[in-house]
């Protein structure tokens, strides 16, 4: 009798299931399990949608940023600056006594007197006055890889950003260095 009832019951449930489509059929589990699994799917879907929205937004922001091509002089890997080089060439060609600064430095092997004052007047003014003291600038006669030691204390800190040199002979050169106390961004201000 009980067995017949169960069979009938099973038969009824089977019919109901055939007629009506419900989540019970998809997730034939207990109610707690069904809710848990459904929530997982909803959260996963929302996560995918949110991540995609962030990516779409990021693509707009990145596109705006990356399509702005910075000037070549702001290349962080470059240590050369054509304007510093230009000033340096003019400085070396400036008349000193009967000769030019280049010849005086070549003969005396160091910077002193007029050429040192002129160097201060040009480069200290450009980089330390206009650059609001964000820079160190020094010039020295370098033999091989070793400098004369002038302004050596200033070498110990700051980031080297510009280095230009003019050769006096095969193993001797005049080197001009500009070092920033802060970051690369202030470089543009220093070049006026």
């Amino acid at each position, binding site marked *: 009798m009980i067995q017949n009832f169960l069979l009938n019951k099973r038969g009824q449930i089977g019919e109901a299931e055939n007629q009506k489509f419900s989540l019970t059929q998809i997730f034939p589990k207990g109610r707690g399990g069904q809710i848990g699994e459904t929530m997982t*799917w909803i959260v996963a879907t929302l996560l995918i949608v949110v991540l995609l929205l962030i990516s779409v937004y990021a*693509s707009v922001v990145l596109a705006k940023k990356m399509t702005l091509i*910075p000037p070549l002089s702001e290349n962080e890997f470059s240590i050369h600056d054509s304007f510093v080089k230009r000033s340096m060439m*003019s*400085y070396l060609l400036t008349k000193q006594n009967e000769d030019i600064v280049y010849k005086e430095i070549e003969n005396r092997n160091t910077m002193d007197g007029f050429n040192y004052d002129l160097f201060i007047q040009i480069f200290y003014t450009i980089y330390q*006055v*206009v650059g609001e003291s964000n820079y160190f600038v020094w010039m020295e006669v370098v033999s091989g890889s070793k400098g004369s030691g002038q302004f050596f204390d200033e070498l110990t800190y700051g980031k080297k950003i510009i280095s230009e040199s003019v050769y006096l002979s095969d193993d001797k050169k005049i080197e001009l260095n500009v070092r920033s106390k802060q970051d690369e961004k202030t470089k543009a201000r220093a070049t006026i």
Partner: protein
Amino acid sequence: MNKNGADKVLAVYWFAILAIIAGSVVAMVLNFYRFPYDVREIEAGIMTEKIADCISEAGKLNKNFNENFDIAEICHINLNSEEDEYYIETNFYDFEIWEKLFQEKHALENPILTFSTGNSNIKTDCEIQKEKEYGLPSRCDRKGFYVNGGEKKYFVEVLSVVRKTSENVK
């Protein structure tokens, strides 16, 4: 039967997700490539470089330099029909008094000579952008250098401005 129903619903779900992801990837690519490259800063930089090369020839002041110096002609700058989109200004400061003026913060107010060409109205865009950079106005490149003019020494400031907004900004 239950399994078939679940598979059908899941298939629809997966197709919907696939469509969302594909749509997003397309949107990302379209977004990324719809903005034109803004090369105005490079263009202004190249102009400044060209002017500087023309004024300082290997460290010496251009031999054609005089009080009526025509930048466009001597430096071979041809702005053609796009003259309204560019502005070039060159200021010469007396180097002997330049340092003193700098200490007093007046150095860039008293050029002894000024030469310019192009549309001077767009120069104001450079002033606007001094504190904060905006996308639309013109791009400016301002550089300075020392030049040896024999008897006289100068500090030269070159300013190049490029507007060309429609070609570079969206």
